[in-house]
């Protein structure tokens, strides 16, 4: 490991340096906190061993600066304080300020070596975590990029298919018999479904990407917005959508509105009778529990879990149009807000979708 020593006493510094080098570790030495800070910024430093009292910048200040810098850079520096044995309060204060360990004067080299072994262990764990995090971020970004590129690239040939089938129908209307017209309609419908799928995948990939920071929002307003978007469907089906008192939560208003829109939209779509949808919320400990209950076709309890996976639909929904993406978007959104979502249902008995959001 690379060690940086900050110690104003020449003798102690020399001893520390020799003890560190003795085990083959690289060693930088500074006579005060300021010099140490400059060395820290110019070199890769795994471990800092710092005295408490030093001219210019003392150990505690050095520790604060190092920790602040660390929050920005993705590296870890193991900070060991050096203090006289009886200064217990110094040790406590140092650990509070972010030091990892301490050594007492008079210094015992064996203690130092033990500390360096611990530091090496922590560093190795930290490097593993950092490497995995970087890999995860990279593959997530790649996936989102992939979804968005694929979706965009699929749009244009799809437009060609739709456009040319439309032209076919227009130019050759009088030459086509009923069978040919049916085929062309089949092509157009398929293209429309595919368009919906692509838009859904795109929306799914974009959940959580570059969103504004969540702020307190009134769920009643959010639900009203969803209802306004569903206005045409509600009118067409004569649906009755009601809601009780709804709380204020910290969330992204657009995304949460999308969740309500998907859930209410589903409730209306998967229904043979006149749709009745009831929305309510109750406080459960540190969370708000939301309900969206319908009188729709319901599903087997076994399917209730699966339907939140992308492209998965309940068999009972097969006769209705749909992409199998809406609930996946709901799940991703709710989980990104620190909540859970699930469905309770019986075939033919309606469904209740429930989700939680952290209360402030």
């Amino acid at each position, binding site marked *: 490991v690379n060690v940086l020593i900050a110690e*104003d*006493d*020449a*003798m*102690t510094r*020399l*001893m520390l340096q*020799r*003890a560190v080098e*003795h085990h083959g570790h690289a060693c930088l030495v500074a006579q005060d906190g300021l010099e140490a800070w400059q060395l820290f910024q110019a070199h890769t430093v795994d471990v800092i061993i710092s*005295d408490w*009292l030093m001219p210019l910048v003392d150990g505690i200040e050095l520790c604060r600066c190092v920790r602040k810098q660390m929050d920005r850079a993705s590296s870890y520096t193991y900070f060991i304080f050096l203090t*006289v044995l*009886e200064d217990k309060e110094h040790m406590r204060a140092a650990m509070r300020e972010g030091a990892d360990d301490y050594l007492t*004067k*008079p*210094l*015992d*080299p*064996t203690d130092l070596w033990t500390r360096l072994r611990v530091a090496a262990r922590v560093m190795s764990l930290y490097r593993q975590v950092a490497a995995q995090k970087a890999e995860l971020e990279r593959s997530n970004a790649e996936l989102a990029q992939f979804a968005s590129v694929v979706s965009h690239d699929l749009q244009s040939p799809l437009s060609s298919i739709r456009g040319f089938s439309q032209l076919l129908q227009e130019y050759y209307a009088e030459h086509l018999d009923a069978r040919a017209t049916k085929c062309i309609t089949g092509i157009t419908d398929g293209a429309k479904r595919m368009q919906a799928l692509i838009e859904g995948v795109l929306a799914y990939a974009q959940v959580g990407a570059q969103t504004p920071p969540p702020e307190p929002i009134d769920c009643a307003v959010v639900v009203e917005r969803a209802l306004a978007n569903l206005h045409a469907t509600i009118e067409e089906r004569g649906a009755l959508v009601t809601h009780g008192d709804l709380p204020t939560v910290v969330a992204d208003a657009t995304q949460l509105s999308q969740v309500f829109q998907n859930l209410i939209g589903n409730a209306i779509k998967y229904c043979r009778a006149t749709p009745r949808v009831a929305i309510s919320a109750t406080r459960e400990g540190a969370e708000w529990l939301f309900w969206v209950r319908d009188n729709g076709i319901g599903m087997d309890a076994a399917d209730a879990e699966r339907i939140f996976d992308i492209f998965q639909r309940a068999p009972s929904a097969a006769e209705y149009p749909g992409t199998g993406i809406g609930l996946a978007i709901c799940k991703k959104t709710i989980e990104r807000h620190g909540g859970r979502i699930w469905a309770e249902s019986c075939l033919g008995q309606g469904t209740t979708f429930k989700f939680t959001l952290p209360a402030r």
Partner: protein
Amino acid sequence: VDARALAALRDLQGAGRPDLLAEVIAVYLRDTPARLAALHEAVARTDAEALRRAAHSLKGSSSQIGAVQVARLCADLEGQAGSTDLRGIAETLRRLDEAFDRVRTHLQALAGGGNES
């Protein structure tokens, strides 16, 4: 001088640093007179903060080399700094000078012996 502290140094020395003990002693003997002078000066100026700092740092290096009595007297000074007991401070300082003289003689002999062996 406490032999245990020096034993730790010898451990390091035994591991392929034949000159370490002598080196450390040389640095201590080189730096300490200036520290003592700083203590005297701080007392003369009745600068409690400077006294506390100088005493603290001399305490650290002295305990490291095993100069137990010097370290203890430094701790006393740290405690006395800021008090109005000027005579007490002067007395501690005088005993500190004497203690260091004894340590110096001892360490010089030790460093000399170390070099010969």
